[in-house]
């Protein structure tokens, strides 16, 4: 009897929280609905949540076949995010391997040094990094932007924590079998680190995809823009056409929401590991 009473309470709470969550997501529902409408219907009040007439194809065309098409921004974002994610995962796991599984003098000192850099906010180093790229001739190139985003102390730290838990026995056994360090890293340690690699990879991908500040400062050529800067162009060009702007927003958000829903366990775990964003 008691069990049943608690259940009813739980059902009611669930229904209330469902309502709260829908209210919370209203801006995104509004965006989706506006992206399907004619501009004249967007600001109608009371809000037409379900559009009475659809203009989705024209809005889609306006975004995806614009002067500088959204597909180019998409391609740029995809390219940058994939390369920076792969590089960060590789370099972080290499460093973590050295910091956990190899014995050498100065190892702990290096780890302390890495940690101490964490107190430096990346915004405080924008000016010198901008100058560095200018001098290297990499200002306004994807290569320069990648150079600025392919290392992460935070992810190195997370990978190190995980690798500390990887058993040394397997490594010793492999050594006895005559395996070299590179084989041990590539064939034994990395496969055992799959869970943390997935977590770190997805979070780095999301952060890079959403990064606005670095491209804003290190890129000037519109053809090199990632989605976030592309959004800026749409906002300037379509200041009074919210239907098209909302189609652009929807296009920017959708792939990440899909990736997130599929891989939610990894994302949520990665965030719970105690992350500091950015």
């Amino acid at each position: 009897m008691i069990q049943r009473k608690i259940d009813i309470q739980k059902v009611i709470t669930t229904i209330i929280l469902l309502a709260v969550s829908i209210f919370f997501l209203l801006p995104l529902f509004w965006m989706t609905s506006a992206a399907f409408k004619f501009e004249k219907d967007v600001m109608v009040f009371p809000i037409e949540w379900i559009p009475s007439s659809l203009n989705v194809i024209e809005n889609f065309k306006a975004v995806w076949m614009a002067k500088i098409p959204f597909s180019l921004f998409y391609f740029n974002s995809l390219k940058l995010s994939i390369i920076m994610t792969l590089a960060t995962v590789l370099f972080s796991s290499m460093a973590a391997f050295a910091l956990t599984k190899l014995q050498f003098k100065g190892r702990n000192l290096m780890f302390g040094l890495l940690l101490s850099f964490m107190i430096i906010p990346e915004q405080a180093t924008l000016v010198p990094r901008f100058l560095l790229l200018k001098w290297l001739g990499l200002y306004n190139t994807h290569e320069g932007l990648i150079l600025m985003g392919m290392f992460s102390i935070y992810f190195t730290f997370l990978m190190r924590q995980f690798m500390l838990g990887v058993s040394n026995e397997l490594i010793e056994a492999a050594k006895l079998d005559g395996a070299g360090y590179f084989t041990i890293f590539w064939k034994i340690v990395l496969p055992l680190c799959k869970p943390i690699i997935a977590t770190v990879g997805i979070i780095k991908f999301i952060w890079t995809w959403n990064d606005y500040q670095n491209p804003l400062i290190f890129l000037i050529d519109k053809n090199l823009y990632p989605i976030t800067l592309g959004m800026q162009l749409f906002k300037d060009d379509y200041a009074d056409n919210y239907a098209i702007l909302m189609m652009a927003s929807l296009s920017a958000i959708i792939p990440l929401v899909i990736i997130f829903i599929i891989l939610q366990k990894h994302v949520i775990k990665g965030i719970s590991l105690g992350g500091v964003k950015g």
Partner: protein
Amino acid sequence: MKENIELTTEKPELLIKKTKWSNSRKEALVGWLFLLPELVGMLYLYVFPIVFSLIISFSEWNLVGGFSTIKFVGLENFQKMFQDEKVFMALKNNLFFTFLSVPTGMALALILAVIIHTKVYLKEYFKVAFFIPYISSIIAVGAVWSALYHPSSGPINMFLKSIGFEKTPLWLADPNYSLIAIIIISVWAIIGYNVIIYIAGLSNIPDELYEAASIDGASSIQKFFNITLPMLGPTNVFLFITLLIGSFKVFDLIAFLTDGGPNNTSTVIVFRIYEEGFRHFNMGYASAISWLLFIVVAVITLISWKIQKNKVHY
């Protein structure tokens, strides 16, 4: 294994010693090799920038004039900074942002997390639903809010008018409301993150504590204040510090939506760096402001490390 073959030509008693010696040498070499890319990265991402920005913060240098126009001016940039009304406003806005967004974001998230953790079905759905704004591009989301905030015909003001408000704020274009409008978006976007951190903290509290309290006849509210809240101490500290540091780094929404305005009412410290460095190309002055940001964030971080270290054995 080439090495072993070469070594076998030596005398047996020497062999053991040499193999051991060269193995640890080799391990050290491999260790540094694996660490090398990361160290090179740190060199150009942190060591060079921090040293170089200190040097140029003591000079006057406009990039447009080229490197030859660099001029050493001592502490002038720092003097200018402390008299710069815009820097003062930026700091004030950062503090306002912190005081409003951090407690609100934490309190709302704590309530949601406690409810999601123990009191509802569909836990996984709720985690995902509240987390979606956080993974969405803040720029795309900012564009949505800019439409919602539209002064004359946006849904927010239309709603306010429909329930009887006659004078509605201009939101992003309103000197009194631009920063508040930005804070509302920021809190909305970060809540999912806070909820996830709180749920992680809540799942570390042993069930026995609640069971024991139930046997003693404690109410839900008593349990919350006597078990949940104290046990969440480290989580609260972590979240508070993360959000505090984050609030000094806020930039994206302001650059995208208000450009620091209207009339600098929503300018913040990072936006000042951006304005001076990348619009006016005053590299020296921008570096001086960067150092202000660096010191503020570094001090908060160092204090937080100390607190968190102590909190572990509470």
